[in-house]
């Protein structure tokens, strides 16, 4: 399958898959460039969709239909000679009529084609395309081969028609068809005329009402210019004048004049009508080949962008390079502690308060609270130095209880846990956790964070009875000073 066929098939599969490409055609595309990856995916998808047989059928259908019309026009061209030019009852050919019949319509049609081809918006030809579509449909129904077999036949038919007669190839395709059919018509006429002139003896005259003799002479001189250069025997001006009145010539002369006129007629048909059409036909045949060769998929289409994401995803599947071997330590989201805390916590005596990473506002709040219950300076642990200072002061105080003030909004982490463990400097030290916040606990985010704090506090044996919550805009819980330890 050549590149064009492959791309056409890719497009056919796009039509079948409609808006989104299927990701079921798995293969290792990562080592291939996009073009090769697309080609490989097309081959895999074709095994499932079987679209190539339909496309091949459509190509054959188009070729067959065009060929059929060629035969039709060949017959029309051939029969027009006997119909309109020479028949059994007539022994004369009106040269002017012959020219009008074959060359003039051809030139007129060439002019129209030029206008349509070079000024694309002058005339829209959807009706012509539709005419061809009707013809194709008719021929297809007559052939009746694949139409009932493939479920996407109609879609593929429409796509293929759009492809051949649409914006990309349409003008060239229609031009080729036009020139091909005209060539067939003119070839039929030429061959038929040659056959008639070979088997019949006819005299040439010219008859016209609207043209003067001078005009006709000039016209004939133009037509004889090229054959004269090629040393072909064509009528002289006197022969032309005589032909207008049907002068009877001696037998030998008459025969020569007949040959010269028939030379001119056949030469004119071939050179001025058939040859330009054949040349144009070959040019457009080459153009079609070129168009097929240059046919590209529109990779900016949403379908292909999605397909690119499948074939060459931006990110490849993730992989673990250094696995966590301590899964037991991992966050156990299912076993969330309840967000219960002690709303009437009794503050212990012989306790040492420490603030951890509090901002100015929370620090003031904690300071006020400490002043109310204890007579020590509150250290705010922010770095290694303040951490060491707090631990040293704690040990010096020999306190049996440690009150940890934290901002409930902050995320509790292993750093906090590590420090809390260090605060348990002797075995019977009980830690308390006082959570500070600007908002009531019923806010969803605060409540969730509170759960995190209660969860991590449990790891240093701070149960919910030793945890309380101090909201600035709410009445603090009923915190009482304990009279004795315990």
């Amino acid at each position: 399958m050549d590149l064009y066929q492959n791309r056409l098939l890719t497009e056919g599969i796009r039509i079948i898959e409609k808006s989104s490409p299927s990701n079921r055609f798995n293969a290792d595309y990562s080592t291939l460039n996009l073009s090769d990856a697309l080609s490989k995916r097309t081959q895999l998808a074709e095994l499932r969709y079987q679209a190539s047989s339909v496309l091949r059928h459509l190509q054959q259908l188009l070729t067959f239909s065009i060929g059929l019309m060629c035969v039709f026009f060949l017959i029309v061209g051939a029969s027009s000679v006997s119909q309109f030019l020479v028949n059994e009852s007539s022994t004369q050919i009106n040269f002017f009529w012959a020219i009008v019949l074959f060359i003039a319509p051809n030139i007129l049609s060439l002019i129209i084609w030029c206008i349509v081809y070079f000024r694309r918006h002058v005339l829209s030809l959807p009706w012509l395309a539709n005419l061809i579509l009707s013809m194709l449909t008719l021929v297809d129904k007559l052939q009746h081969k694949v139409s009932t077999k493939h479920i996407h036949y109609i879609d593929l038919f429409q796509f293929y028609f759009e492809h051949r007669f649409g914006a990309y190839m349409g003008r060239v395709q229609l031009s080729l068809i036009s020139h091909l059919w005209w060539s067939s018509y003119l070839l039929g006429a030429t061959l038929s005329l040659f056959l008639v002139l070979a088997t019949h003896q006819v005299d040439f005259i010219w008859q016209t009402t609207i043209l003067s003799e001078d005009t006709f002479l000039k016209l004939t001189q133009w037509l004889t210019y090229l054959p004269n250069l090629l040393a072909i025997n064509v009528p002289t001006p006197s022969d032309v004048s005589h032909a207008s009145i049907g002068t009877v010539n001696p037998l030998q002369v008459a025969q020569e004049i007949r040959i010269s006129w028939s030379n001119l007629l056949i030469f004119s048909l071939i050179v001025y009508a058939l040859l330009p059409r054949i040349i144009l036909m070959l040019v457009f045949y080459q153009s079609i080949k070129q168009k097929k060769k240059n046919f590209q998929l529109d990779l900016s289409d949403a379908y292909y962008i999605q397909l690119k994401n499948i074939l060459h995803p931006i990110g490849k599947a993730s992989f673990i390079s250094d696995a966590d071997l301590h899964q037991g330590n991992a966050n156990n989201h299912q076993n969330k502690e309840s967000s219960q805390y002690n709303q009437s916590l009794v503050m212990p005596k012989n306790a040492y308060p420490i603030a951890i990473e509090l901002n100015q506002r929370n620090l003031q709040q904690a300071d006020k609270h400490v002043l109310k219950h204890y007579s020590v300076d509150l250290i705010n642990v922010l770095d290694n130095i303040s951490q060491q200072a707090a631990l040293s002061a704690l040990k010096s105080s020999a306190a049996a209880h440690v009150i940890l003030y934290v901002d409930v909004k902050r995320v509790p982490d292993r750093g906090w846990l590590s420090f809390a463990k260090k605060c348990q400097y002797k075995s019977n030290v009980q830690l308390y956790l006082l959570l500070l916040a600007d908002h009531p606990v019923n806010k969803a985010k605060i409540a969730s964070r509170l759960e995190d704090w209660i969860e991590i506090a449990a790891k240093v044996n701070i149960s919910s009875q030793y945890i309380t919550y101090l909201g600035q805009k709410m009445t603090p819980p009923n915190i009482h000073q304990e009279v004795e330890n315990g």
Partner: protein
Amino acid sequence: MDKELLSVAVVGHANTGKTSLIRTLLRDASFGEIADKAGTTRHVEGAEIRVDDNHNLVIYDTPGLEDSIHLLSVIDEQSISEHDDGIDRLLSFIKNENSYPELSQELKVLKALLSNDIIFYVIDIREPILGKYRDELKILSYAAKPIIPVLNFIEAGSDNMRNWQTQLARLNLHAHVSFDSVVFRFSDELKIYQKMQTLLAHREQQLEALIEQRKVQWQQREKAAQQLIARLLVEAAACRFKADNNEQSIAKISNQLQVTIRDLETSALNQLLALYQFKQQDIDQYDLPIQQGQWELDLFSSDNLQEFGIKVTSNFVKGAGIGVAVDLVAAGLTLGAAAVAGGVMGVLWGVKQRYYDEIHAKVKGHRYLCADDLTLHILWARQLSLLIALQQRGHASVTKLSLAQINSEKTTLPKPWNQWLKSARQHPQWLDSNNSEQPPLKAKKQLLIKQISESLAAISNDTSSKTN
């Protein structure tokens, strides 16, 4: 042949958005695990970004450096010789890893620091600058690798931005970038790669290729999305159904019309989501106003008017309902143009093909129903809002998205709006389900889609310039 890899370690304190950053860069919402708590990432997890056929960028996510104060003190305690440097300190600590089981997570980070080409240090700038962050940066400096501080949550933490910039400058880290996991900007992503280019001069070409590739991908995706919206508008406007001229038939056919247009919108919606690589589970997670691949609010609900701020001067008509009259003036022009070109057969054929249905309906007392202007306006506004939302939505965002909050030009219709609708309504063959007898060639449809896409691109550029 093995691909040449450029590797990045993404490190930072717990809960700063390291995994979110990687998800956004990968456009993959399934990468890693995200939760609003510390210790969510516990493995070192990597993923590759394809640069071209020969180059990949590998990004490693690491656990958070949660106990940097303790870690730094342990590293600084390592007994090393006078001539040894920071790398030797780290290697010495790694050698004694069994002595510090409580720092097992930090150990993974240190290994990642030493084994990758460059380090992204992610900072949640909503946080105050604490000693532990300075300690983290000091530890990173021991690895002697290029560091790009990534300032995350810049929308919510804008007040703290200056403080963090000053602090980073004091530590000689000037090449920082801003990023937001919630409100994604493509320009921020490009800046990350550009900073990498500055710091990794020997990888400049590879990174240039990466930047170009990302730009192309972004533009292609945006263009494709605009084409999808344009096609939806054209097809919805071209959609029509023939009804008898009585209320019962019109009601029945209106219903069919609504179903067809809903299907068109759903199809476009799913394509847009697929284009931006949002899977159904992502949609559920992000709480987009979409359920089971469909908009929650029905297209024909009058609530859309409020949702999208559309003002109605006339009474809101339910659903669809304008009959399209035969455009006899246009018919005459076609006839004239065709006549000039010659070919009576062609003329008659062309006029028959284009106007037969309408004339036949007129004669038989039928009427054609199509979507009204207001419905198409809502359709347009919804897709436009969704497109902007998808473009500004990182693959790590977990906050609720309300389309009404999206600042777009959705209420102002483009100038040629009426012309677009008129053109689409005159070409029922542009929608396959219409089963029109008219010629099937779609060059004009493509032209109109192109025009609408260009208009969408202009709106997108305006929105981007306002956002930036």
